[in-house]
């Protein structure tokens, strides 16, 4: 068995003349939280979509459990145990919690022994249970998702991915739109996922969120990897500097007296 559950080896992706990713290597160990940091335009989105099966890499190799794979669609990725929680969360606001939780993978029972119908009782029961595991109480599973807070929706999306057997959970900026308290909830959830043996790729541009939960950190800048560091090897300040492209950050902060990011 390979040490790494997921590997991208020297992957490049081009869109016409644009080099979105250039020779990026990312290795995810079993049961670790791997933070992927980068400023806007660093290629984070392209990298996620490559991991999630939306794009195929133009160059390089994609390995799961040490075996090379070619994922042609998000379905392939899901079947292989790689689940992605996008920023838009893939939730439908006007649908109930139960319907959202099982969207696309509805439990089916036979009505009167013949007619295949969606098993709403099971869907509602499991979704409430799984949300409770994550510390979210919903008044009932018939409640529409649009009434939930941003943090609760994030938790619902993560709970769903875990329930459907994700081995690798890719979280695309899960804390970007959240307040302080809700961000803390989501970070706790990431720790919980790790405790269950799930490997997490946590994409963010907020080093303050990445640092407390991450086991290793990969930095992206302008489509290139600037290296992977284990937790003990790098300080938060170094992370910030590297994300911003080195010296720029310190010059920027000189102008803004007393500000820390």
């Amino acid at each position: 068995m390979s040490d790494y559950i997921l590997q991208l080896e020297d992957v490049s992706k081009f869109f016409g003349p644009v080099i979105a990713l250039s020779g990026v290597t990312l290795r995810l160990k079993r049961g670790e939280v791997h933070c992927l940091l980068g400023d806007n335009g660093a290629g984070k989105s392209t990298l996620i979509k490559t991991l999630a099966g939306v794009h195929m890499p133009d160059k390089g190799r994609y390995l799961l459990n040490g075996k090379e794979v070619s994922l042609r669609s998000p379905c392939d990725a899901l079947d292989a145990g790689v689940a992605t929680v996008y920023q838009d969360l893939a939730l439908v606001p006007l649908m109930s919690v139960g319907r959202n939780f099982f969207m696309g993978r509805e439990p089916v029972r036979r009505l009167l022994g013949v007619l295949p119908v969606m098993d709403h009782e099971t869907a509602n029961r499991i979704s409430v249970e799984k949300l409770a595991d994550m510390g979210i109480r919903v008044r009932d599973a018939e409640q529409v998702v649009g009434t939930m807070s941003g943090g609760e929706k994030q938790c619902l999306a993560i709970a769903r991915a875990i329930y459907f057997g994700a081995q690798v959970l890719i979280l695309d900026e899960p804390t970007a739109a959240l307040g302080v308290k809700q961000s803390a909830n989501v970070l706790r959830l990431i720790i919980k996922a790790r405790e269950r043996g799930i490997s997490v790729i946590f994409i963010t541009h907020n080093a303050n969120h990445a640092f407390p939960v991450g086991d290793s950190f990969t930095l992206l800048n302008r489509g290139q990897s600037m290296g992977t560091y284990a937790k003990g090897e790098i300080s938060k300040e170094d992370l910030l500097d590297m994300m911003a492209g080195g010296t720029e950050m310190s010059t920027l902060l000189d102008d803004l007296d007393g500000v820390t990011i």
Partner: protein
Amino acid sequence: MLDSSLAGPPAATPIDERVRGVGTVRKLLARPEFGAIAGTLLILALFLMSAGDSGMFNAEGIINWGTVAAYLGVIAVGAALLMIAGEFDLSVGSMIGFAGMMMAIPILEWGWSPMTAVLFAFACAMMLGALNGWIVVRTGLPSFIVTLAFFFILRGLSLAIAVLLTGKTILSSNGDVILREAMQADPMVALLFMGHVLTGLFDACASLGWMAARDDGTALAIGIPKVVVWWLVLTAVGAFTLARTRFGNWILAVGGDANAAKNVGIPVSSVKISLFMLTAFCATLFAVLQVADAGSAAADRGLQKEFEAIIVAVIGGCLLRGGYGSVIGAAFGALIFGMVQIGIGYTSIDNNWYRVFLGAMLLIAVIFNNYVRSRYSLGKS
């Protein structure tokens, strides 16, 4: 022993102090079909007051406006489900004219058996429906534009093909072949699309004096037209599909957020294309029933039906941008439509007010539905 009795039942789940209880009324208000049902009761009350003794509410009167509602209700099932999936079809009316032609021409000109011709019409229409859907999902263009194109294409085709092959635009006979007689002679067509059900019950009621009778003792209202049966069956199947099946969940998801649906692995394109085929099926069913009833096919049949179907779906609680709605609501919308269209003739109000009334009702329904949805479903004020 003492311990276990002291422990009592397991502690109830703590209640979030920020969530308040939801009353039955509030839950009822949050249902998409609430507006249409309330509207139906209101319109019913208005007509009972203004035309209660005019004959609108005896057996013939009810069958009269019920039939109008049923025709519209048949196409509203397709329109509502398609709208919930986030698309709409402006070619329904033209499709009705086209499907009628695709059925009448083979019977009259080519000597096909009527049932074969009916199946041929369904096949042609559903293929065109699939083409509509395919273009929409492949190009990503709004269905408004794509189906507007087919609105013109199909109407033009119906006229052009009819003139090319028969020299006429209204077809009821060709030499000795008379359309109505040919259809009546085909047992399957007669069974499925022609005549009435419960005629015996109606005659019995007439003989007991509960209904108006003709001179020969049979009921003045012959029975319940087949179109009403089709309407009820289609509505039941549509409502069941939406509420209880996997496919229903997919329809809601595709209309609510197509991108989200795609990301969780729902075949968005297939769902949309199949619903475009469903609207074409409903339009053809409308056409076959109408041709059977009228005894003729005409290239200009189904004028404005696309708009009426959309209005009915909206009154029924469907959101124009999809993701929310009800097939049952659409059935009540059709009922409102039928009652107003026919009922206004029973009152002293001039018929021209019908359209004014309809437009106003559409506007009120949209505003009301939007308000109710944001306030009671999403909990916003």
